[in-house]
């Protein structure tokens, strides 16, 4: 087994961190909506997709990536609030199956709508000029400036969200709503307005992730579903309703996924004949995070940081 040089380990850690933090932006909204409002919102991924499409269109229209992202976040938050008021409010009291059906229908509506407005081809969103270059971290290790920027944004937003939830009155209401909705309502928390606000913020966070990942991934129909599955894995690992759990879960998933893809195939190559290894390596690497989820569920069925005792 060849040794893993420090540069490789550092680079993979940064990759894992970047993936994890972007997943956190999605998972934090998802976990709050599920934890506080008790709504399974499958359309969460569609908001991520909308954020990316808005950013691509608006960045092109305004000529500035930053203006595009900022406007996209506002627009998506607006759509999120509209969605809460018009559709989701009606399914709060229904069972989860009804919610799944309603929000799955929303996925189809959003996907078809996007296809009608923007067409089936992927849109182009390019990395802003000032970040489209490698930054030298170690001798011989240039790392994409844009990815470093994503890590920075992720850490900043995570810190902001923690302050919001643990240091403000609104945050207190949110926590109260998450641990016991009926009691919180009885104590005078304006739960309806809190719900709308939480939904708007979570839609905005989706848009941040969609817009910022757009240049790395691809802005295309169906991009939301793929990442939604990962976001669900994250909140199941972290414990539903817990933002701290979402952060830990997201970082775990990001690092395990990256490390698995980087380390497992070469490891298998050393242990097994090449034909078997070349098939098994990628296969096992791609299910590693699900194995992680299964292990967490086995040991702690409520997730790592359960909100409700």
């Amino acid at each position, binding site marked *: 087994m060849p040794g893993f040089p420090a540069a490789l380990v550092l680079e993979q850690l940064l990759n894992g961190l970047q993936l994890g933090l972007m997943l956190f932006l999605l998972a934090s909204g998802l976990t709050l909506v599920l934890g506080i409002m008790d709504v399974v919102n499958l359309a969460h991924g569609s908001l991520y997709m909308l954020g990316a499409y808005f950013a691509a269109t608006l960045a092109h229209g305004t000529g500035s990536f930053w203006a595009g992202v900022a406007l996209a976040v506002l627009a998506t938050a607006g759509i999120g609030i509209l969605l809460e008021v018009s559709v989701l409010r009606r399914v709060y009291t229904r069972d989860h199956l009804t919610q799944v059906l309603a929000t799955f229908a929303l996925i189809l509506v959003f996907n078809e709508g996007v296809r009608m407005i923007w067409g089936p081809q992927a849109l182009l969103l390019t990395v802003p000029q000032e970040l489209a270059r490698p930054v030298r971290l170690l001798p011989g290790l240039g790392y*994409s400036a844009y990815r470093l920027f994503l890590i920075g944004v992720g850490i900043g937003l995570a810190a902001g969200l923690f302050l919001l939830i643990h240091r403000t009155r609104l945050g207190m209401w949110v926590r109260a709503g998450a641990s016991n909705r009926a009691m919180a309502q009885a104590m005078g928390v304006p739960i309806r307005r809190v719900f709308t606000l939480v939904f708007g913020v979570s839609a905005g966070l989706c848009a941040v992730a969609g817009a910022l990942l757009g240049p790395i991934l691809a802005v*295309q129909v*169906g991009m939301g579903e793929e990442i939604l599955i990962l976001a669900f894995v994250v909140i199941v690992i972290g414990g539903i309703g817990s933002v701290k759990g979402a952060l830990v879960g997201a970082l775990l998933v990001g690092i395990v996924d990256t490390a698995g893809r*980087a380390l497992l195939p070469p490891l298998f190559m050393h242990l097994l004949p090449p034909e078997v290894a070349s098939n098994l390596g990628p296969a096992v690497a791609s299910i590693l995070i699900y194995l992680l989820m299964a292990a967490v569920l086995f040991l702690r069925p409520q997730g790592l940081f359960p909100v409700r005792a």
Partner: protein
Amino acid sequence: MGNRTPFRLVVALALLVALPAGAQPRTVRIGFVSTLSGGGAALGQDVLDAFKLALRHLGNRLGGLPVEVLVADDQQNPDVARTAVERMLRRDQVDFVTGIIFSNVLLAVGDLVFQNQTFYISPNAGPSEYAGEQCNFYFLNVAWQNDNMHEAMGHYAQLKRYETAFILAPNYPAGRDALTGFKRFYKGRVIGEVYTRLGQLDYSAEIAQIRAAAPKAVYAFYPGAMGVNFIKQYAEAGLMQQIPLLLPGFSADADVIRAVGRSMVGVFNSSHWALELFNPINRRFVEDFRRTYNRIPTLYASQGYDAALALDHGLRAVGGDLSRKAEFRSAVLSGFETTRGRVRFNRNGYPIQNYYLRQVVEMPNGEIVNRLRGTIFRNHGDAYVSRCRLP
């Protein structure tokens, strides 16, 4: 009864329109199943647009018969493709099927088409499965066998004497064919062979592995959006200047260049077709494609155009008689004029043709395009034909 007059007029008009139709020969129905959404959509769209352009050039007739094209999007999903093909064969009774981009999709529907005794004219996917023991009378490929482009690039890497190479492809039939093809002609040391998930868009983990392995050259087969992302990320990681990136034409054609931009200038790639191949068919194709669709055609587009030419040539040879299948097949196999000159075919339905070296360059007018740099293989067939038992 004055208010009945418009109705009568409509009936009369309808009769007028319907009358000549009865006297016309039967139409050829083409089932065009392709990837028209998602990360491979640009490929399917190019093939479809060029196929339609060829039909327009042929006066909307194939071998003298009027044409009807039924289009379905397979969403790069084998199950969706199977449903679409089944519907086209049973309900719409199409005479030919064509259009599929991805080999895993083709392998899922091939048996349906062949069992129905319908020809499948492949404008792209060329899996090794259909080249060897499982070759089929009803399968014709106007493009290439999956290994070919990669064999050409493997040969080029060998000529350049790169001592070590790191090679990557998506984990699906064409991806495995690709790296097999590369290794068939590259005799240096492969120090990394990575298969990624089909459709993967973030290659940071693989790029870190490449950096750590420090090979003399990198070879990556990534079509469509996968290619766009891999190359962008390779450049953003600062590797473009450090380790030469060799690509098959799929990952370095106009669709990818449009998305990646200037950082691709200088990259070498292999192709069976090039913009500036000098023959009248190619000139007309390139000029009219650019004028009609306002973009530079890709090699995929040339293949879509050639698929229509193959149908036209075969149907012309049988005088539009769709029941003379053996004659149709042998007419196509014996060769016809395409966008890359005259191409002949092996008994497994795969072409014998030249493979060229191209380089991405920036033109004086700022346009970034591929330019021909030389010929890697002349009259090159595929490695599997000896195992095909067809006459």
